[in-house]
């Protein structure tokens, strides 16, 4: 049986690690390559890097980071942020990533998912979706709406419809990030996570809100997620990944043992 995955998420701006709260106020908190190595040694199952560099010109710096990370860790990792076409995907995969994550660009151009899956296989294409809880309406029957551009633009698109459509197009995994929970450290949006996990047959990664070990357990059990994305809970040294895994294992949740 597959183990549940613990995936630290590293936001990278201009080649440095940052962490924001509700997508604002990012502060420099270190070197992404060193952090990747540390999390690898602690037993991370995978790592996600988001390039949140504002300017397109500095994209090269990020790819250099990706290459350094690929030489520092021997586990899969994915890369997102600024992936707008097959060319960007190829650059990230050539630099050593296993997977690419598409988000806003896929909402604006859903063909991007199909093109990526065709060129590199579904296992290489992760759909990231940023989701806001909204009043139920005709266009958003689930009460969860997809937003883009870091939460600044609402799309009138239902999160569950989008998840199903993305899988149809070839997305191999879906990372569900709750804008409401992001950075709050008050727990994942469990209802949203579960709705998406029940709507599709590909693995769902819960994202946004982890502040305590029990939040991970909730996402992986009640939320039915295959993996939990984590950030501030480990970035400031409060918990190590080994501690989180020891907790999950003690609670009967199957995780990969840390060697």
């Amino acid at each position: 049986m597959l183990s549940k995955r613990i995936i630290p998420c590293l936001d990278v701006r201009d080649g440095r690690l940052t962490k924001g709260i509700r997508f604002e106020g990012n502060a420099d908190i270190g070197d992404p390559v060193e952090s990747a190595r540390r999390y690898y040694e602690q037993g991370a199952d995978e790592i996600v890097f988001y390039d949140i560099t504002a300017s397109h010109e500095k994209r090269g710096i990020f790819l250099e980071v990706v290459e350094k990370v690929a030489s520092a860790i021997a586990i899969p990792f994915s890369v997102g942020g600024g992936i707008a076409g097959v060319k960007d995907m190829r650059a990230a995969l050539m630099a050593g990533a296993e997977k690419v994550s598409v988000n806003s660009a896929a909402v604006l151009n859903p063909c991007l998912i199909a093109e990526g899956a065709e060129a590199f296989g579904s296992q290489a294409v992760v759909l990231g979706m940023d989701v806001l809880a909204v009043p139920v309406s005709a266009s958003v029957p689930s009460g969860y709406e997809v937003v883009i551009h870091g939460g600044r633009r609402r799309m009138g698109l239902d999160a569950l419809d989008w998840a199903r459509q993305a899988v149809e197009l070839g997305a191999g995994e879906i990372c569900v990030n709750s804008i409401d929970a992001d950075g709050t450290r008050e727990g994942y949006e469990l209802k949203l996570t579960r709705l998406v996990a029940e709507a599709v047959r590909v693995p769902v990664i819960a994202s946004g809100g982890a502040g305590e070990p029990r939040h991970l357990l909730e996402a992986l059990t009640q939320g039915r997620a295959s993996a939990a994305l984590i950030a501030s809970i480990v970035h400031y040294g409060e918990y190590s990944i080994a501690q989180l895994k020891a907790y999950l294992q003690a609670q009967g949740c199957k995780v990969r043992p840390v060697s």
Partner: protein
Amino acid sequence: MLAILDYGAGNQTSVRRALDFVGVPSVVTADPEEIFRSQGLIFPGVGAAGQAMRHLRATGLDRTLADWVAQGRPLLGLCLGCQILLEHSEENDTPTLGLIPGRSRRFDPALREEDGAPIAIPHMGWNALRRRRPSPLFAGIAPEAEFYFVHGYYVEVAPEYELAVTYYGREFCSVLGRDGLWATQFHVEKSGPAGLRLLANFCRYCGERADAE
């Protein structure tokens, strides 16, 4: 020096990085002379069986692999490289190299995980092994260690070739072979310290064998 077969299969660079990790010099190559100068050959692979076989036949590398195995030299197949060593793949209904008796079959989408949930295909993520036979590949690796899998087809081989099995909706062979001719369904190069140890064990076997000659 180990050779990593370059046939446009995608993950040869990851394999080379993993060998850097364990301190073993390697070269990514499609040149038969360079391959036959190496102590051991790694046959990586991601993607579809049909396309990979077309490439191997078009370049003559299918014969290089057959000659290598016929001479009893050490080979390690990884993922798609593991499947292609067998006789046939249901993926694109492809006849494959036939260097080990067996075949690759598609996971049945009706299968269920141990908790009752329908399996997702491909099988992607970390899973454990149940060892069937001893192998020098397993030296120093904890029995509960897990490895990273990404595959939509699984292999079936005769029991004498089955070194370890894994459960995902059903039991399937995850490590196969005999001394010097091995393959793993998982990606050793992405399986953390346990995967690197398995890779190092293969390298050590290659070195010892070269010294013995």
